[in-house]
């Protein structure tokens, strides 16, 4: 064939004289240039190896009870001036060190939409303070002069919380909601998932649902949140942090009031011009904390050995896939098995709307738009699919812990999760029990 081609070129191809041949060659080279450029610039995300010494030092910092002007704080003001807890362990304790937290550890967040002559504001109303105690009244004068509100006051629909719903109407343009403490187990594996894997899942889901856009409320088609620097959000309820390191630095600043090179500590709402004398944590200390969290074990799927229970959980796993839970709670993502999350933002319906944000440096603020574009921040109803590994040991459920049980949590799914919730509701009692039995095999390590 090659000989024929070579023979054909000079003599037989009457329309391809020498000059034309040069043109064809030039066009072919130009066409190949982008491919060459991409091959030369192709980057692959590499996993950072764990440093045992760093992790050990990080464990000490994780369990440390921080004090104002703490000696570990390198001349900074230490804990506070406003904070939610005095140590990481105070909130991350369920199912072991690094686990989730209960309702009592919830954090209040707020968003105030842009008013005339005012910029939009968002952030955290801290529960405690060394000085300058924050209250909701500082967010908006119509709100009470307390740092927190009970969860049942924020809810609009009945849930299986202990308290009956006593919804309080918020002032116009103001959204207040709570965030439950997530578990940190397996965070290293999530950190190692490449953006390519997340986007591949996003695209295949769209393809599977006939190129459905992510703004459809009834199909499980999520979207990856692109942060201001172009990276994808993988951590936090709204996917506001791109890496474990960013997440740790933001948590140190927001929850403990420990300013660090990655994230400044928040100024109290009543004292916006507050200046800390120095940073509380060095980048080394932040890396030690990140190393410790990276060293936390991965949750496990503990299938009971008892014959009947094993059968029940196996059947439940099949139902989990069958009724569509696995559309968003994907069992594996990239090379990570058993994560049960696609790490994408999904619209969860009006009842699960929750404004407020940690207002992290690199993240995009919660948008007020109902239909955010691909580069916009999360809408109030959009939440990142939480990984279900270790779910049996991380009650209460949903972003603010409004569901005490797994059944309740499933039934509260709205929007893009409503199909699976409806299918779950239509199952017989025995089938529902099987599905719950499967979820209860997903244990903290």
């Amino acid at each position, binding site marked *: 064939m090659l000989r024929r081609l070579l023979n054909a070129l000079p003599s*037989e191809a009457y329309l391809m004289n020498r000059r034309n041949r040069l043109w*064809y060659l030039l066009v072919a080279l130009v066409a190949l240039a982008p491919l060459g450029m991409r091959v030369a610039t192709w980057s692959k995300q590499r996993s950072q190896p764990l440093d045992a010494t760093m992790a050990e030092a990080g464990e000490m910092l994780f369990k440390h009870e921080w004090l104002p002007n703490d000696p570990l704080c390198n001349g900074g003001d230490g804990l506070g001036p406003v904070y939610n807890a005095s140590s990481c362990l105070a909130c991350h304790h369920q199912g072991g060190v690094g686990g989730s937290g209960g309702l009592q550890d919830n954090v209040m967040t707020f968003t105030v939409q842009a008013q005339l002559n005012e910029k939009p504001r968002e952030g955290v109303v801290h529960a405690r303070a060394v000085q300058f105690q924050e209250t909701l009244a500082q967010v908006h004068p119509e709100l009470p002069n307390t740092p927190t509100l009970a969860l049942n006051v924020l809810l609009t629909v009945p849930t299986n919380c202990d308290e009956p719903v006593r919804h309080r109407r918020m002032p116009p343009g103001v959204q207040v909601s709570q965030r439950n403490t997530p578990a940190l187990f397996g965070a290293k594996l999530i950190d190692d998932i490449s953006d390519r894997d997340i986007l591949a899942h996003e695209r295949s889901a769209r393809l599977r649902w*006939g*190129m459905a856009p992510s703004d459809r409320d009834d199909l499980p088609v999520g979207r990856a949140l692109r942060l201001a620097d172009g990276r994808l959000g993988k951590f936090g309820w709204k996917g506001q942090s791109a890496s474990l390191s960013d997440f740790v630095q933001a948590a140190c600043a927001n929850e403990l009031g420990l300013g660090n090179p990655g994230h400044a500590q928040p100024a109290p709402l009543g004292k916006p011009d507050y200046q800390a004398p120095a940073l509380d944590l060095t980048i080394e200390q932040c890396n030690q904390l990140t190393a410790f969290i990276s060293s936390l074990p991965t949750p496990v799927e503990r299938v009971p050995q008892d014959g009947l229970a094993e059968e029940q959980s196996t059947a439940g796993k099949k139902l989990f896939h069958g009724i569509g839970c696995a559309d968003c709670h994907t069992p594996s993502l990239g090379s990570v098995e058993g994560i049960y999350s696609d790490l994408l933002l999904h619209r969860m319906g009006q009842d699960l709307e929750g404004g407020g944000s940690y207002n992290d440096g690199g993240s995009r603020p919660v948008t007020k738009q109902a239909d955010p574009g691909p580069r916009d921040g999360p809408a109030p109803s959009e939440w990142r699919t939480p990984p279900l590994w270790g779910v049996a040991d991380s009650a209460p459920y949903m972003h603010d812990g409004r569901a005490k049980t797994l059944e309740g949590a499933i039934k509260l799914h709205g929007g893009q999760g409503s199909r699976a919730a409806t299918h779950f509701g239509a199952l017989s009692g025995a089938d529902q029990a099987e599905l719950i039995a499967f979820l209860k095999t997903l244990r903290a390590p």
Partner: protein
Amino acid sequence: MTPAERAHARQIALPPPGAPGETSPEDAPPFDAVAIPEAPAHKQPRKRRERRPLEKHWYECLLYPLRAWPLVIVLAGVLSALAWFVSFLLPEWFEQDGKTTGQVLLFALSCILPAVLFLGFLCGFLDCAFTSAVAGEGQQVYYPGRNLRLILRSCFNWVVCFLAGPAILFGAAFFYWLYGGDLDLLDWFIIAELVVLSFAYWLLTLVAANRRDRLLDATPEGIVTLLDHLGWRLLAVAVGAGALALVHGKLAILAMEELHRSSLQGGCWLFLSSVSGLFLATFLFRLLGIWCYRCHTWEQDSTT
């Protein structure tokens, strides 16, 4: 029988030169006209329509899809309905759990088979536009009608031609899109290139295979031979056609997205992109057929 086969059969059936009743291929009535029974003697003979000369310039081929407009519109309508089916009903069906074998068979018979037959008809129509031109037939617009053999054969030919090379390029573009991460301008350019090359190669394999009605010609060697005969300018035409296919593909994807937001608006966009795509595809196949015909007659003339 394909127009090429008909042309071949007609040549075999032609009486020897000088025999009574001999007609030249240009004068021979088209196949469909032969099938029409003659008018009864007592009626006034119908005024014979003027013969339409074969296209001489590329722009004259634009008239061919216009002559076939009812077919183009109907096919575009069905194509849009098929896209709607793929967007809405197919995912729902796949989502259903616990399907029985009977249900699967029923679905295949009621949905998949008609879709395959329709796509076969579409391929057959484009094949007819090409082969009728290769046979030098300018009078009528041909389409597969109810010739199931022709429909299935066209469908098979198109699939084989796709698998004979373009599938690799198209697969590469698809997997690059899927696993390429956050795509920037350079990535989109590479994907566009792969898709354009894939469509261009597909077109060349189809022309190579249909020109002499030999599927074995759908090889790189067959394509080189084709380029030898028709001139390397054909490569530029094929790449241009690939670019047009890319634009229409993108339009169709946008229309499918819009379909999820507004059925009416998305449906209109889908229909318009289908009409435009089919119009251009018909024009292109006619043009390439005429190109083959002219090159063939030119070669014959130069031999004599």
